[in-house]
């Protein structure tokens, strides 16, 4: 019998494990990752991305707006996370 994992605890906003956001205007729950990076050896900037259940991001595509924690982003890339693609990482750019 196949193992069916319940991902909702990982994206429990009330429990503080995730944040509410909108993806292309639709309410979703995401885990935000932001780090500082050095681009082209010239500039200190950021690398924002969100982790989201793939079931909630089936129509995610580059260019779509994302709003999270009062910050406006645009989807830059959408990629499935290993090992099974149950989670999706959405790379963002601040607009």
């Amino acid at each position, binding site marked *: 019998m196949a193992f069916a994992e319940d991902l909702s605890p990982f994206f429990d906003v009330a429990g503080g494990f995730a944040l509410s956001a909108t993806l292309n205007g639709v309410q979703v729950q995401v885990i935000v990752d932001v780090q500082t990076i050095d*681009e082209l050896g*010239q*500039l*200190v*900037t950021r690398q924002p991305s969100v982790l989201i259940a793939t079931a909630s991001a089936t129509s995610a595509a580059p260019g779509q707006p994302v709003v999270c924690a009062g910050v406006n982003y*645009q989807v830059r890339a959408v990629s499935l996370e290993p090992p099974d693609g149950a989670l999706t990482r959405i790379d963002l750019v601040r607009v």
Partner: protein
Amino acid sequence: MALAAAQVIDALAARLVPVALSGGRVFTSRTWPLTEAELPAWRVTAEDENAVRQYVGQTINDHTLTVSCVGIVRAVADLDDAMHALAAQGMTALFAAPAPYQLQLESISRATSTEGEAAVGTITVSLTARYAVDQAAPETLLV
């Protein structure tokens, strides 16, 4: 006073200060990364410098200094256009008559980031400047 090459760098950087798009943000001595709040901006640095003696028995050399003027921009859309617009304004300022030090454009190169937010680009205007200096008086530009 400073080494002749440093004076040349400062003179070229001063020409870039009035460039509208970069709002006076021109850096010549900064080696650590810029911040987003400091963009668009220019970095002006000396690269190679060659010296050739003018006449036997004299100590005056003809110097050829390679200068890199790196324009740095951040744009979520149309990054290419933003880079080119900055370069156009910068070159207009650098070569405004009379252009100093026999200034000559050597090349224009571009780089865009594919990491992070992929919204940063640099456009490098490489120039050569020529001037004469007595090697016994390295801080005196003889034009």
